[in-house]
């Protein structure tokens, strides 16, 4: 019978990641559980929601093999409140005993029979810079489509545009963001479409990296191994739209403003947005004027000092689409490129050219 002692801190770390994956599942209640399995001196903790699978392994003091499934939240909360350095897990019949020097807990277990396998991806394994990989995902994930009608738009599109880099793109067909992050020596043969929710979980694991992160991918799955944690996600098959062609090649107007000014103005216009969140952007030679008008609340206009090249132009945007990209810009100034009326606007930071954000204006 299973009886092992593990490091409380290590257990906590793995269970925290597992708990993000274990979710309520109507037809398969076992998915709310983690599977604890002891073979020799290794304890593996698995969780899955059939989209993502996580496996964490810990070395434990040997004390008998065995496996048990218990509700993830219950176990995590218990371990979180354990103050002692070591925790002993033991199985007696259907009950998992969680004990420390000072506490004794018994948790009812669930049959392990129903617990799904977690796919092991072993193909195309390479080391990857986890922090940069995570950054690519976290920068772009907000613009992925939330709707399930077009599954390929609900994904982060990862591909290799240039060697030694990876490019991450998302779009919901109203705006599009492209981020290219260095990834030295990494070779990605086929592009990946990672469902955005899964991508976010992968990013969370990838940035934990203190040591080498290994990335593997096959036709249907991708997987990341960070130290003792393995996480795998299904990939969407389908193809991402050929978006290069919609990025304007020529612009009529460029306007550069201070990011902080721009943010400040948006905070003000935010109060007066109508239900379409319509923001009017007027560019002329010296200034960039943002205004919003709501029938119920009133109107506001903010003029910013701007360095402008090209023709004067007036366009309406959904403010949310513009505001959402700003947290991802660290530069102190940004340039807005306008391609004309009814055509997309491109936001770029002035110094950092690794990111492009494209947003369509409103029709009226």
């Amino acid at each position: 019978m299973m009886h092992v002692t593990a490091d409380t801190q290590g257990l906590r770390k793995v269970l925290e990641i597992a708990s993000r994956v274990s979710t309520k599942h109507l037809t398969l209640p076992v998915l709310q559980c983690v599977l604890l399995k002891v073979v020799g001196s290794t304890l593996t903790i698995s969780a899955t929601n059939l989209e993502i699978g996580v496996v964490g392994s810990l070395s434990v003091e040997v004390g008998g093999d065995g496996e048990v499934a218990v509700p993830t939240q219950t176990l995590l909360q218990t371990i979180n409140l354990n103050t002692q350095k070591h925790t002993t897990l033991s199985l007696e019949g259907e009950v998992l005993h969680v004990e420390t020097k000072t506490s004794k807990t018994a948790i009812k277990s669930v049959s392990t029979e129903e617990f799904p396998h977690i796919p092991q991806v072993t193909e195309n394994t390479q080391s990857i810079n986890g922090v940069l990989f995570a950054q690519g995902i976290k920068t772009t994930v907000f613009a992925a489509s939330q709707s399930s009608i077009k599954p390929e738009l609900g994904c982060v599109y990862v591909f290799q545009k240039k060697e030694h880099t990876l490019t991450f793109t998302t779009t919901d067909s109203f705006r599009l963001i492209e981020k290219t992050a260095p990834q030295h020596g990494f070779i990605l043969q086929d592009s990946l479409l990672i469902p955005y929710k899964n991508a976010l979980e992968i990013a969370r694991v990838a940035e934990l990296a203190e040591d080498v992160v290994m990335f593997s991918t096959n036709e249907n799955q991708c997987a990341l191994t960070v130290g003792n944690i393995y996480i795998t996600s299904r990939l969407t098959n389908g193809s991402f739209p050929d978006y290069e062609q919609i990025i304007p090649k020529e612009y009529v107007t460029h306007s550069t403003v201070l990011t902080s000014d721009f943010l400040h103005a948006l905070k003000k216009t935010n109060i007066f947005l109508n239900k379409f969140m319509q923001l009017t952007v007027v560019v002329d030679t010296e200034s960039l004027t943002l205004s919003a008008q709501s029938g119920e609340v009133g109107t506001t206009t903010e003029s910013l000092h701007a360095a402008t090249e090209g023709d004067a132009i007036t366009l309406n945007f959904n403010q949310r689409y513009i505001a959402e990209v700003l947290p991802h810009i660290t530069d102190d100034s940004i340039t807005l490129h306008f391609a004309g009326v009814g055509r997309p606007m491109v936001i770029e930071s002035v110094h950092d050219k690794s990111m492009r954000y494209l947003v369509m204006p409103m029709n009226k």
Partner: protein
Amino acid sequence: MNPTSHSPASIVRTEQVDVKQMWDDALVHIELSITPANFKTWFRDTHIVSLEGGTVTLGVPSVFVRDWIADKFQALILKTLRELTPYARSIEYAVVQRSDRRQGSSKKQTVNAALPLEEYYINKSDNLNPKYTFETFVVGSFNELAHAAAKTVVEKPGIAYNPLFIYGKTGHGKTHLIQAVGNQLKRVGKKVFYVTSERFAVDYMNSLQSGTANNFKDRYRQYDVLIMDDVQFLANKEKTQEELFHLFNAMHDTNKQIVFSSDVHPALMLNMEERLRSRFAQGMIVDIPAPDSESRGAILKAKAAQNTITLSDDVVNHLSSTIEGNVRELEGALNTILCQSQLLGRTLSLDEVRVLIKNSTRPRKSLAVVDVVEKISQYFDIEPTSIYEKTRRKEVVRPRQLIMYILREDFQVSYPAIGQKLGGRDHTTVIHSCEKIKRELIDDRDLEEEIAQIRSLLK
């Protein structure tokens, strides 16, 4: 169930028609044997992809489901399927996400303009455009041979003609034909890869720079069929040629089919290594010449049918005689007509078509009659003045008739006006001449060639 009641023939039918029905029946049985929760979780979104030689390929939505079903339900599924068809022997799994998911009925408020994102029409794993198939390929006398060669390759890939080398001028259907070969072979489960020579060269250079040349080699060697378009662009790229040479040998030795296209015969490829050229010539070289007028008519009709519009014979004849050469130009003219007739909501008359495509036909109206006469008499090496004279010498009559025909067809000059400008002839004479040329054109390839040359002079 009596197994002998199934003849093999009935199974062949089952493979095609009834797999869906069969799986639905199987699901009913399976549903009864397992818990509802299990059934809903694992069997939702499953379907039979194929049934071949007793192997049922089951499409499942993810790897999780695949592993689980294979582990827990394999025996049950096999047992159930065997009750339905005694020929089911084994089960394989394929992870496929079904694309025919219910399209949400959400009509979004389209206040915000959407990005004009077009989906890739091209399959990225093999670069093939599914549009190009043998079904949509119009066979005429000019491309019969190429078509037959391609068909043979499809039947015996790697054995019949290896490599198949197709050459011809732009717009004659090379890409369509070689992609059709790819699409057809893909249907029978071959690993096909279509690449333009330019892409191949760029890929190779990139792999050299990033030090992954071996990777590159392995990637290309895994395919059963390699289709390379426009190989002439490899001229002067020595390193890439060398790589292609090795790839060619590797594939040819293992009887993998290779298909090339180019705009010139391999013998005329300058700056291409001799050993590569001779290898191109090793299998079958076939030319797609310019389509003749009859084939152009057939192509037009086929394209019109694809676009579900009907063209009268007059229109087809007019188009096929005025737009020569390139199939792409024919398509362009057809699109113009299609667009206009959709706009007007009716079929267009010959005159309307004539006006509409005036710009897509090469000769311009700006040429004066004298210029036409001069050019054509130059072509026939006679005195331009003799055209206007009353002489009925044979070497003058023929050019004169051709001039009348060209003036009428390409420049839409009226019959009386032609008569008058060419030395005060009666308009019936002009009509007679035009009709005569038209009649002769139907089966005289030389005449057609001649007119094509004259038209190019008048550009």
